[in-house]
């Protein structure tokens, strides 16, 4: 194993995935420390811009986790996330970014084990892929403030 450790941002929905991460904690499961989990209410809040924003600020991957299809606390937010994720994959191809760097998973509140498994797997995959390399266009300056909308997606 090299010294390189990937940084991964986790976008976890409050009701299923985040609760499952809590369960993994309560069960004292041990998993890779590479994912930093951010809680949102629903995976429907997932915005592809978050991925690019994360990449821009040094992430090597983004893990989005929501409720299983049919289980969404808000009826269908996870389907919206899926839709955006599918489009995003095409965009990643065009940008020459490996699809494995963005992963969408359904994790129910009782699947603490799956949190561990997915995080370990993704960390391993990204260790293999190595750091994300994006060529910045010459003269482009790093944004200083967080983006507020602005892209075309939905």
């Amino acid at each position, binding site marked *: 194993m090299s010294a390189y450790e990937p940084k991964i941002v986790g976008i976890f929905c409050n009701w299923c995935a985040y609760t499952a*991460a809590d369960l993994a904690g309560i069960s004292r499961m041990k998993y890779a*420390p590479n994912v930093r989990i951010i809680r949102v209410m629903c995976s429907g*809040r997932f915005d592809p811009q978050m991925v690019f*924003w994360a990449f821009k*600020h040094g*992430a090597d991957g983004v893990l989005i986790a929501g409720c299983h299809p*049919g289980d969404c606390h808000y009826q269908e937010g996870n389907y919206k996330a899926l839709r955006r994720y599918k489009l995003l994959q095409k965009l990643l191809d065009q940008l020459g970014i490996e699809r494995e760097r963005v992963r969408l998973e359904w994790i129910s509140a009782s699947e603490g084990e799956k949190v*561990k498994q997915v995080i370990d797997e993704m960390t391993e995959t990204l260790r293999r892929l190595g750091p994300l390399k994006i060529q910045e266009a010459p003269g482009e300056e790093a944004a200083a403030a967080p983006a507020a909308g602005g892209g075309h997606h939905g």
Partner: protein
Amino acid sequence: MKGNGEVPRIGVYVCDCGTNIAGKVRVAEVVEFARDLPGVVVAREYKYMCSDPGQDLIKRDIQEYNLNRIVVASCSPLLHEHTFRKATAEGGLNPYLVHHVNIREDVSWVHEDSDEATRKAKAIVHGAVLRVAWQKPLEPQSVPVRDSALVVGGGIAGISAALTLAEAGKQVYLVEREPTIGGHMAKFDKTFPTLDCAACILTPKMTAVKDHPNITLITYAEVEEVDGYVGNFKVKVRKKPRYVHEDRCVGCLECIEACVFKEPRFPNEFDLGLSKRKPVYIPFPQAVPPVVTIDPDTCLYLRFGKCKKTCVEACGDRNAIDFDMKPETLELEVGTIILATGFKTFDPTRTPKYGYGRFPEVYTSLEIERLVNSSGPTGGEVVMRNGQKPKRVGIIHCVGSRDKNTNPWCSKVCCMYSLKLAHLIHERSGAEVYNFYIDMRTPGKGYEEFYNRLAKEGVHLIRGRVAEVTDAPLHPEEEGKLIIRVEDTNIGVVRRIPVDMVVLAVGLEPQPDADEVRRLFNISCSTEGWFLERHPKLAPVETFTDGVFVAGACQGPKDIPETVAQAQAAAANALALMDKGSVEMEPNVARVNEELCSGCHICIGLCPYGAISFNEEKKVAEVNEVLCKGCGTCTAACPSGALSQNLFSDHEVFSEIMGVLL
């Protein structure tokens, strides 16, 4: 209240949680790190942030340092976010200016390396500090809670919950799928460890439900649709036709006598097929409501349209029977919901080595409950299918429990009910009874004493998981018997014990439709399929959906006293909500910035609640905050950044992303 538009003055509080966090994360280092972050005025380490002195730290600092933002890094926000919001409010700051992040469940408990854990904790605190600066003061919306409740399931859990609510003056709708309430308990003869007659303690409660002015009993019905939110649920209930008007039937049962089928010939579901019934039937004599039901699958008139209809004749001018009855949909409006949908017993054909279904003298424990019941198919006689009393009976524990091939969990009640059945079988038939157990689990008031009593009564207790039940004899004395093969682990010998009758102590499982039911009510299930409580210890009857509570064995295996306690706890929780009369909604709703909105309509189609509409005059989208549930789907989709979800705005979420990428 402060917190609007000022320069951020942030207080950061990192919790040791005893050694839970500090044992892995070097908290002092995280605090040092936080102290230098932009906007941070004060950063502190404390042993237990959730304790009173911990909360007081926040309150004091708000005053002393004139703080306008708070970050707490401790356990899961699902556990203590509300605690720190409350403390923040008590300190004089808007409670939504605190951000609570998790360095216990997400860090110290799941990572082994101290350096890694400390680095991750810093990153999380960094994210929180950057994010909290963007948080705005918010005012939660208050919505009224209706003074009525729906209880789903009419077993002892549902009955207990309904009676508690009704006694407190609430309007209760009790919906039961079967023609009668009573559930599993109504099938039992005696209850452990006191050997109380189950019917004697249950039927008065059933009658009380029927007679209570505040309870509307809806039997032979299922919930079909649930809409709305805490305090204001709209529920559709589909009532199956029983072809008998409940209000006209007086329970004289003359129609059953008069049915063209002279003899009962269809399996009686209540007796698990051990007795027969007619197409017009009452499940058991004390059924509530005490009215008959006509089974459309076996009634000649309902099947073929041709019959002498002697039942109608017998009913006479009471006119209770109505073959034209159609399914009916009732619409209810309730403030709270209690789910008490119970359990099913394990199907032992999944463990073929015990011969259930192959050997007629192998029974499930529930079938034996009916046999020993004085209102059961044999009037309480324990007899074999040939009518003779068994001389030896074997009871096999843990069938479908504690078995990785079937269900891994302990069903909790089987040891005790097996001891009870051992006592009853011996009492009714004089048979010698053998109990085969893995571990004897009898925790509970008076339970261990009951076990000791049974041991003294001479029940044979053999420790060992039974390998098989066979009818192949090896010795003359095994001829015509069922032989139980087991390793007696107390003496380390494999034994063959010939018996006349085998009882399988089947475990408890989630109802087969538990998954559909939980989706209907928007709650979660554990991996096994039991309804998931909000917190395993501190919120055992609440669910993740506000206003929906769980009671009894639908949440996990439970005996009767536990079920009743939980049902009454669920009722108390529901009462607290209803008596308060209103509930504060999380203010994480979406808002439209009219200046940015281009009127593209994208958000309108995405909202699952129809909360967004188009203002034709202003040509912008509008959010109805009462309908908005705060998922944020619209915020993610708005192409012009006009929509923003409170507490999860782009500024907040994107800053946090940037921050955690330390």
